[in-house]
């Protein structure tokens, strides 16, 4: 029982990061129908920011955290400006391919002009600290991640529910063309969506990088996969579903790795994907069904 509770806490900690990533994917999908496979590049860039500041110049994490978040927002906006704004209105498949292209270009830039090697930087000293509650040893890191994620989710909900920007974003997500006819400025709402997506990726990136303590030119692939996968599990376009999908994925990973017999424990990742494939067979729309007006 103790181990199960421990696993649940670990899974929630891991799932919190996935939820933030998935939410960022879902926000952009909502307004552009773009499944952004370049979403991880914000973390790639943030990783090198951490390397150059913490790793080579001994900056404090406290100083670097806002830089990481800002770099993720800036990267998201730059990618939108340089790549996605050029193909706005193109087919969904074109958008998808463009996002793949952005991913490869960003990776290649770091590969060519920085290094193919792993670049490391010190993790904060408290990351591995634990505290005890009865028989549970809980990581401070997990507690912080879960707490910050909850605050971020509440703030995002308020932003979407209580502000004009949020109203525009939700209107655009429901029916982009009608929203434009009603006076919503498409440029503003799309850039706003990318900025919000970058902000969420930046917050997730802070925790991802605190754990990893390293970066490479392809460091964004793993977080991108987790984010996209969680968004798919939850139901593409559903913000609530993305969050649920993130937590579900995190819990599934931790519980499977812990509960599978030793002889097949190395198949954990495979089993996760098998479960997801089964989910898609029975609910192709994901856990949450989203009604969209299709653009024609």
């Amino acid at each position, binding site marked *: 029982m103790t181990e199960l509770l421990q696993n649940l806490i*670990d899974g929630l900690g891991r799932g919190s990061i996935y939820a933030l990533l998935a939410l960022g994917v879902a926000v952009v999908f909502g307004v552009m129908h773009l499944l952004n496979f370049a979403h991880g590049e914000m973390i790639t860039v943030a990783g090198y920011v951490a390397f150059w500041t913490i790793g080579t110049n001994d900056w404090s994490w406290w100083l670097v955290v806002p830089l990481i978040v800002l770099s993720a927002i800036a990267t998201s906006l730059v990618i939108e400006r340089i790549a996605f704004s050029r193909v706005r209105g193109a087919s*969904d498949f074109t958008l998808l391919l463009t996002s793949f292209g952005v991913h490869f270009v960003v990776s290649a830039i770091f590969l060519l002009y920085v290094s193919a090697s792993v670049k490391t930087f010190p993790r904060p000293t408290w990351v591995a600290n634990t505290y005890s509650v009865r028989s549970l040893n809980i990581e401070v890191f997990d507690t912080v991640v879960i707490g910050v994620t909850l605050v971020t989710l509440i703030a995002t909900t308020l932003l979407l529910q209580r502000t004009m920007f949020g109203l525009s974003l939700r209107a655009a997500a429901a029916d982009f063309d009608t929203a434009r006819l009603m006076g919503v400025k498409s440029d503003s709402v799309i850039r706003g969506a990318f900025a919000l997506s970058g902000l969420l990726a930046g917050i997730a990136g802070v925790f991802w990088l605190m*754990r990893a303590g*390293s970066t490479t030119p392809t460091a964004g692939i793993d977080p991108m996969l987790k984010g996209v996968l969680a968004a*798919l599990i939850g139901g*593409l376009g559903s913000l609530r579903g993305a969050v649920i999908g993130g937590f579900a994925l995190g819990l599934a990973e931790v519980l499977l790795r*812990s509960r599978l017999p030793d002889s097949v424990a*190395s198949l954990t990742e495979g089993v996760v994907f098998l479960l997801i494939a089964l989910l898609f067979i029975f609910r192709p729309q994901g856990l949450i069904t989203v009604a969209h007006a299709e653009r024609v």
Partner: protein
Amino acid sequence: MKLRLVVTLLAVFGLIAAACGDSSESSGGSGGGSGGGLDIDAILGADLADCADAPSGDPIKVGMAMDFSDVVGFVDIPGSNLVPYVAELANCSGGINGRPIEVRVAEVGDDAALATAELLDWGAHFLIGPPFADFALPILQTTEGKVPLFVAASTEPTLADAAINSYLVTFDDHQMSGAAAQWALDEGITRAIVFTEGEGIPYTGVNPDAFIAAFEAGGGEVVSIQTYVWAADTDFSAQVNEIAGISENNEVVFSAALGFQVTALRGQLEGQGLDALTYIGTDALDATGIQVEANNEGIAHTPHTSISAGDRIDSLLAGYEAAKGEALESRGFMALYVDSMFVGIQGMLDCDCNDSEKIGEAVKVISGFQGLSGEITYDGTNGIPPKAVPINRIVDGEDVLVATIG
């Protein structure tokens, strides 16, 4: 609906796919053969500002099929920079028996066979290739086993096969992880925790397999085998919870994981109060810079060369930096690339020929070649030189040689 199905299928397919020694003190040269030896010290001591007359004989052509991607670019990129520099030094010192060395580098990209064909068309006498079967096997298929291939930075035993002219230049996974197990036993440690990606998986599973076999054969007990995802996992919460329930805080923790993974794992284990464990890993720790990681004190690893200030490898790398204005990464692997070239040339000298098949026959019987990375012998082997394995450890912040096994 259609869109979501297409996107879902694309994503699922994409995601499933994604889931998926000592420096010698002598001056080099071969113990056998008819063509004489290489004077490695003379080559490395050449002064590029004061060269001998340019050699004018038929060039010795060295082909390098290298991967510049993030997969093995961390060794192949610096390796493919260093080898031409050493060729420059050799030519500066008068060449090899009056013959200049020419080096051509072809990036394997997505088509190692094409890069190999380019090098063979150019007339390469022998090839230096990237580690990992994904790259090396297409090269061997293209050469049809007729051109010697030195898989410079690889420890993968399945890539060595003298019958088809494929050679490792260093010890293989079994020697490396067997040495790690022996070192742990020599330290008096009798219990081990092993991290693996799965039995039999190249490198990430074969090394743990070899460690377990050697550790148990030496009387040790493996108390826990944990799985992880190589080069990705940095959250080991599930594994740490399980280990915390069985550890006596006196085990050796072995894996073929990368530096940042081992330090992450160590941090989490120490967070659970397991602060007296001993950590040892493979050459992956050297490749990923365990020397500069935080929380690395006491971690041991098995580099290919243990470099100390002022030794031949250190001097060569310093000379490169001074000449080219940039430091090379993955320093511990660099001597393997240089030795790949030297041992190929030694084969040419031994057979006194330019024919690749005959060069291969000569390489097969090379014995006692004193290279930059240690002694290399292929005679009587299947292409894996039986080299001693250095054990380095981070002591007081310095990466120092603490033992040599074999």
